[in-house]
């Protein structure tokens, strides 16, 4: 574009062009975010469907020990090979996804709900309520996550009970911090002030006007937390204190292959790869949702 034509343009035109460019870039980014969410959701859907229809896929039972087929490398009949007892690793990996995804979903959901409630209360009411709740959160966050969960498992004994108690107890604090920060903003918004001015009782302003608007950062974070909890579950059973054998579980499957690492690499490698695929799928959904909702996740830090 020559300098003459640029000068001839009216300022409004330039401004309009710049605005269009910014709007278009925003649209492009949102479109990209939708694509990411769709890809993640598609991968996750395939995994869920596969694990739900597993009994009808013609795979051997996850518990069937076939001593004629011990430590066979991956093939068409056994996509992930077989383990040292002749069990089909792919069938076991799919069977494990019910337990892993289900438990991870449950503990993430529990942490989310507890954190939402206490974070909203702390942010809205302030004062003593705020101090008590947030100091509790500080203490929970002062322990490394895995250490706190291990301490709780040492009391409840190995197994899923410790996971169900320990993870929410350690995990609610991050959600509470996120929600409190959001509530501090929402509390001062016009409609909340209007509700106060109209003389509604405080609990009503809280429950009907402020609280319904503070869930976004916590829910966005919960998707990343879901991935972390899946890894945590696998880690705990790898360490021998999570889900107990013979129930198929991802971490336990990976651990099964540890002593056969050199002569049967697939027992450890392939279930782990499956976990990574599931984790990536959920992370993609999380990243996309974070971008679409425009949530600033810095408070986690």
């Amino acid at each position, binding site marked *: 574009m020559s300098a003459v034509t640029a000068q001839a343009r009216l300022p409004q035109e330039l401004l309009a062009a710049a605005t269009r460019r910014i709007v278009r870039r925003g649209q492009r980014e949102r479109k990209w975010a939708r694509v990411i969410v769709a890809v993640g959701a598609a991968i996750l859907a395939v995994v869920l469907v596969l694990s739900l229809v597993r009994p009808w896929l013609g795979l051997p039972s996850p518990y069937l020990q076939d001593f004629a087929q011990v430590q066979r490398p991956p093939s068409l009949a056994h996509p992930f090979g077989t383990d040292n007892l002749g069990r089909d690793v792919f069938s076991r990996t799919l069977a494990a996804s019910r337990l892993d995804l289900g438990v991870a979903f449950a503990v993430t959901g529990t942490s989310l709900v507890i954190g939402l409630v206490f974070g909203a209360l702390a942010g809205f009411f302030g004062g003593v309520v705020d101090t008590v709740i947030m100091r509790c959160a*500080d203490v929970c966050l002062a*322990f490394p*996550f895995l250490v706190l969960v291990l301490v709780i498992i040492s009391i409840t004994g190995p197994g899923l009970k410790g996971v169900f108690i320990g993870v929410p107890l350690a995990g609610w604090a991050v959600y509470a911090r996120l929600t409190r920060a959001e509530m501090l903003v929402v509390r001062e918004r016009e409609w909340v002030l209007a509700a106060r001015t109209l003389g509604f009782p405080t609990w009503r302003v809280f429950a009907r006007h402020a609280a319904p608007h503070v869930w976004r950062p916590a829910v966005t974070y919960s998707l990343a937390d879901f991935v972390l909890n899946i890894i945590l579950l696998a880690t705990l059973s790898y360490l021998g204190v999570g889900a107990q054998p013979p129930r198929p579980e991802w*971490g336990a499957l990976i651990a099964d292959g540890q002593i056969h690492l050199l002569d049967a690499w697939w027992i450890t490698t392939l279930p782990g790869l499956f976990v990574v695929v599931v984790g990536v799928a959920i992370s993609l959904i999380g990243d996309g949702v974070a971008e679409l909702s425009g949530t600033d996740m810095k408070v986690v830090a």
Partner: protein
Amino acid sequence: MARFLIRRLIHALFVVVAISLVTFLLVRQAGGDPARLVLGAKAPRTAVVTLRHELGLDRPIHEQYVTWVKGLVTGDMGDSISNRPSSVSSLIGPRILPSALLIGYSLLIATVVGIPVGIYAAVRKNRLGDHVVRVVATMAFAMPAFWVGLLLLLLFSLQLTIFPLAGYGSGFIGHLESLTLPAIAVAFSVTPLVIRSVRASMLETLSADFVEAAEARGLARPRILYKHALRNSILPTITLLGVFIGALLSLTVVVENVFAIPGLGSLLVSSVQASDFPVIEGLAVLFGVVVVMVNLLTDVLYVAVDPRVRL
């Protein structure tokens, strides 16, 4: 500044006291009778009562707590249950160095890789390079650290035999050699977090007024990046350590178990399996205090380094 320091110190002190209280109440009260655990289920009642008296377990709970804290401060954390003759501190003591080395080593890898890559991703925002970094980081984030550790073991120790199989080695060089694969395994999970934070803080700096002003003055792009933007986003990366220390400690606990490193993490897991409550108590407090201290240090450092932050 002084007021900030005092407030921050009081807060840290409060959290440390709360950590000790929570640990004490959780483990001591819910964890079962230590005397019974030591003597076993078949021991006669009189022996249990005698040992309870010896251990001070028949005294009121607040007295027990005070005794326990007094012990903690002087480094005496009682005796282990599963390794009966040895004290908790004699079990923990020699395991601090291996863990500290592993944490330092993996932190070094994570920052050396993470900071340049994060800056690169910010500069190439929404272009191919940024997308590639994001995809790789997302995949690394979803990998369980123990699985990465096992694969590294398979590839570099069993197949290529470049690195020792497990353990801690002897001498400083031996330690470094043994800790290389574990440190890479830990860094695998931490680096994506570092990249993400550095990218975000760099983007924020790049959109600041002074960068725009430098661009308007027609300064060369590299000069703006390295002299103006980079210097200003170094500071937020200092505070990263405070954010990631918890994750870093959790990851070392896992990875130490994969590589059989005689550190605090493998002691914690074996103590949990053996219900060795005095050791669990001591380790939980130690881990908590480390997190609080690192957070305190990074906060103070942040204020001390940045001339704009004056409280």
